[in-house]
Structure formats: structure tokens, C-alpha cells
């Protein structure tokens, strides 16, 4: 209230008093199960959530101005209808280049407590992550110097940065702070399974059976890496070799740590919203959920760094029956949150 009064009373002179300007705080809308079950989200002390910061981040996320030729935005590879991943196995950069990893979905990232981002964990913090695609030659292929100049000379952005951060001098740090603020609002916690846990919906017997298979160490044994009813993130955000290949070509975490024991390890993704996030695995090799389940059931490949949790490696997998596979899939799909992908606050504002 006081801040608003000062701001309006200054009228056109607000730039004279930049230190008195404060954007409007915007607390995250934390789903009840998250508030009840797990630790608070990670919000850097130097980048609090604000109305203006989130609005700016959302505009930037959907604006191709950040790319080298003005043709590609973050959303091109992180589309809301796909829970902010890419339906293509490998995303195509502005020059037509493709990478070797599948774009990661973006939701509930404020609860990635270790703050290791990307499949191989190479960036620390959402702000740090957002620096990368803009300058990656096979993605948006820009330079930050050029991106900042484009924003600075834009008719709207200097004002929007002032509103968000109290300065109209744009730099990469503020760009990534704004994008990270928007990304932290991308919270998914209202699937059928969430409603089941809240007691407002009854799951089908098949879905419940699938959850039992998920939680049963003698069946699916999925919970060690993918959460449980007390962890609504449905991931441990830790790196594992899940037995995809006998010969590992993309060494993943091993390239980041330099430790050969980490070769072939990639971050466990959340199993929320699988209905929208195909294809699957770090390299998008599986087009369907059935293929993913078949991998863990019969398709495991041994390698020196395979996780001991891939316990049934001697028999190629946990050997689920067809009925068990169908039930497991039904449970997984009960973690789809269509309210999340259709949330109007998350769509393109431009």
C-alpha cells in the first residue's frame, strides 16, 4: 500500500527514486499436498517472485527476440500443451541443427532442491539454466550481448524491466531472473491422483492396482527414484543409469563431474504429466509409455555404472505381466494434470 502510494505520487519522476520502487510480491500458489508433505520451494533470496517479474518472464519465455535471428522462443521447445517439453525427439535450433537430448518438461522446478538442471545437471539454479539455450549454437544461437541490445532497443522491454526490477538497464542476469520467476509459477499438482490423495476423487481399481505395482519392490519398484504418495514431486531429482545401453555413448553426468562412475547417469524426470511429455528418456528414444514400461520390464541393458536399483538386470527387467503393465500405465496416467497445461496464466501473452 505504502509502496503504491509513493510510486503514484512520484508520477513521472519515479526514475529519480529507483531505490524506493518495489515490485508487487507474488507468492507461489503451492498445492495443498506440497505444503503438507515436502519442504518449501527454493526461491533465491536475490530473486523474489513478483507480479511484474513473472509477467516479464512469461513475455520473454514466449518471445523469439532472444534468438539469433528472431525466429525462436523458449516455448518453441517447451510448449505448454506438452507440459513445457518438445513433442519432437530432438529439438531443432534456429539454423536447423538438432541436439542429442530430448527437451525437458518444466513444472515444479522450484522444488528441485539440489538445483541441478538439465538431464546431466550441468547448470546450477533456474537462472543459470536459462542462460544456456540462448547462446547454444545448436539452439537459439544468439549472443547475450546481442540479445540484450535487442531488448534494450525494444519499445516495451525497458519499461517492463523497470517495473520488474527497478531498472530499465537490461542485462542477462535480469532476463534470466524474470524467466526463472515465470518458470517457478509453473506448478502442477492437481491430477486425478492428487485428488485421490485429497479424498475428492475415487480412482479406478486398475489405477490403484497400478499404484501398488509402482510401490511394490517385488513388482515395478519404481518408487525409489520416482517418489511416492508422500512425495508429490514424483522424482528424486537424482542421477541414475537406468540400464538403457550396454555401450554408453552419451555419458551424461560423467561429462559434468569428470567421474567415470557417473557415466551414463541422467536425472530422473518426474512421472507427472507423462500423457503430454512423449517422447521419453534423455534422448527421447521411447515414443510411448508402453515402451518405457517394457524397458523396465524386459529391456534392461547391463553396463559398468548401471544403478543397483535396476536389480533385475540378470533377467533383463522386473518381468511384469501384460495386466500389470496396463495397470501401471493407468496409474501413471492418473498423474496427468490437464488443468496445468491449460492454465491461462501459463499461455503465450504476446
Amino acid at each position, binding site marked *: 500500500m505504502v509502496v503504491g502510494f509513493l510510486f503514484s505520487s512520484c508520477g513521472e519522476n519515479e526514475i529519480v527514486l529507483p531505490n524506493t520502487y518495489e515490485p508487487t510480491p507474488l507468492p507461489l500458489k503451492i498445492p495443498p499436498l506440497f505444503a503438507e508433505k515436502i519442504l518449501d520451494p527454493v526461491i533465491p533470496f536475490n530473486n523474489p517472485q513478483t507480479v511484474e517479474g513473472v509477467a516479464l518472464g512469461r513475455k520473454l519465455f514466449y518471445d523469439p527476440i532472444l534468438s539469433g535471428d528472431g525466429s525462436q522462443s523458449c516455448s518453441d521447445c517447451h510448449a505448454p500443451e506438452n507440459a513445457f517439453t518438445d513433442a519432437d525427439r530432438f529439438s531443432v535450433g534456429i539454423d536447423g541443427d538438432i541436439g542429442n537430448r530430448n527437451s525437458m518438461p518444466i513444472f515444479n522446478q522450484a522444488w528441485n532442491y539440489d538445483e541441478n538442471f538439465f538431464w546431466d545437471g550441468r547448470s546450477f539454479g533456474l537462472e543459470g539454466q536459462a542462460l544456456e539455450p540462448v547462446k547454444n549454437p545448436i539452439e537459439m544461437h544468439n549472443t547475450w550481448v546481442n540479445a540484450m541490445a535487442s531488448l534494450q532497443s525494444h519499445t516495451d522491454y525497458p519499461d517492463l524491466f523497470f517495473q520488474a526490477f527497478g531498472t530499465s538497464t537490461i542485462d542477462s542476469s535480469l532476463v534470466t531472473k524474470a524467466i526463472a520467476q515465470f518458470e517457478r509459477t509453473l506448478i502442477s499438482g492437481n491430477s486425478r491422483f492428487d485428488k485421490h490423495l485429497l479424498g475428492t476423487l475415487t480412482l479406478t481399481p486398475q489405477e490403484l492396482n497400478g499404484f501398488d505395482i509402482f510401490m511394490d519392490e517385488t513388482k515395478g519398484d519404481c518408487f525409489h527414484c520416482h517418489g511416492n504418495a*508422500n512425495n508429490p514431486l514424483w522424482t528424486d531429482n537424482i542421477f541414475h543409469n537406468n540400464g538403457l545401453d550396454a555401450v554408453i555413448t552419451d555419458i551424461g553426468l560423467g561429462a559434468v563431474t569428470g567421474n567415470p*562412475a557417473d557415466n551414463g547417469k541422467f536425472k530422473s524426470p518426474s512421472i507427472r504429466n507423462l500423457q503430454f511429455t512423449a517422447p521419453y528418456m534423455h534422448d527421447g528414444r521411447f515414443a510411448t509409455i508402453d515402451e518405457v514400461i517394457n524397458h523396465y520390464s524386459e529391456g534392461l541393458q547391463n553396463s559398468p555404472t548401471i544403478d543397483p536399483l535396476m*536389480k533385475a538386470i540378470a533377467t533383463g527387467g522386473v518381468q511384469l505381466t501384460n495386466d500389470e503393465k496396463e495397470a501401471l500405465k493407468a496409474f501413471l496416467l492418473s498423474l496427468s494434470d490437464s488443468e496445468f497445461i491449460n492454465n491461462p496464466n501459463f499461455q503465450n501473452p504476446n
Partner: protein
Amino acid sequence: MKNLKLFLITITIITMNSCDNDDPVATTGSIRFDFTHNWDGDNVTTDDFNIIQFTNANGDPMSVSKLRYLISNIFLHKADGSSIAIDGYLLVDLSTQSTFAFVSNIPFDTYTSISFTFGFNEADNTDGFYSDLNAASWNWPEMLGGGYHFMQLEGKYLDTTVEKPYAYHMGTARVSPGVFEANHFEISIDGFTHANDAVIEIKMNIAEWFKNPYTWDLEVYNTTLMPNYDAQILMNQNGDSVFSLGEVN
């Protein structure tokens, strides 16, 4: 009950405030409990992970790739039978260097023994109650009695020339579907004289999990041990001898 890692911050602030009073004679001091890990005396850190370099009592070469465990309710016992209770718990995780608990305002005295619970006792082992443990996916499945894991010790062992996985996971024991048995146990190790701010080393000999009294055969018990009642009880019995008092500084 508090996470002892979080306890650190509040206690530190209180201690700093109390220093302002120029209290002439301190009657209490802090203690940092350092959990260290060894294999029959050889220090084990994450640098040793994933290398088949240990040989268990059964003669099987093996590696460690993960070691996480939960301890709770530390007590410092005195000769007169009274004790100081340090309410709280600690999830020790070698991969995150979360290996110590810091407590303050512990009265200077001679303590004849230190005890703590491995895992949670039945009163504390409430399903889904601890947000930090939930966030770490440390939960124990409801179908096995719920609550939390007490330990996850994982790695590989060599069966002649073939590497095979093991996952020595401990928690509540399932006797039969719907019938469960608490599986925590109490550790008691030597005491110490507390006269200054102290660092107390509590040593875990990982080899003991495979040795005493049951010579652990990884060909019999390797994976899917959580629902295996016999394995759970053997872990409990072998756990008795894994901890000892190390250096006190």
C-alpha cells in the same frame, strides 16, 4: 521432533546471544557428532564408491555406491543413571556430505555412554510426517508398514566374474501381509568427558553389516530385501556391532 541439521542454526544464534552477557564461567558447550565410515578400519568416502575393493566376511568382493541411514534420539548417559536427551533425527547421506549433527548447550559433565536409535522407534516412525524426509523420497512403502527407510546401502558384488547388484534396504519388517514388526534398534557406545566445545566421532564399520553374527551371503540376500522378513531381522541383528566411539576432540 527436529531435524538435527536444522537445529544447528537456531542453537547457534542462541549461543551467540548468550555470549553478549560475558558469562564468566561456561557450564555448557556444543557438541558436533561426526559420523564417519570405514571398512574394517579403512576410511570410506564417496571417493571409494563404485569400486569393487572390499571383501565381505563371506569372501565376496563388493563395492558401495550409496550409503544413507537415519539415526534419531541421541542420549548422553551419566553414571547416576540420568541422561541428557537430544531430541531429533539425522539422515546421514555420504553423497551430500550430510554426515554430522550439531547441538549446543550440553552441560559439561562425564558421560558414561552415548546411545541413539538406528532408524525411528514406533512412536516416531509416522508415515509421511517429516517433510524433509518426504522430499528425499526416504519413505518406506505403506504395504510394508509405512514410515521411513532406516538405511539404504547399495552397490555391486562379484559372483566369480559377474557383477551383480545388491540393495541392503532396512526398515519396518513385514511378517505377513498387513502384519508388521518394528525393526529399529538401540545403539550404545562408549562415553566421554565433556569439558569444552567438542567434536565426537561416531564410526560405522560398514563391513559389520555383513559379518556379525550372521555372515551375510549376497547370493542369498541381495535385492528385494524390503519385503523379506528374514533379511530385515538379520540386518537388525548385524547392526548391533557397526557403531563405535571414535576420536573425541
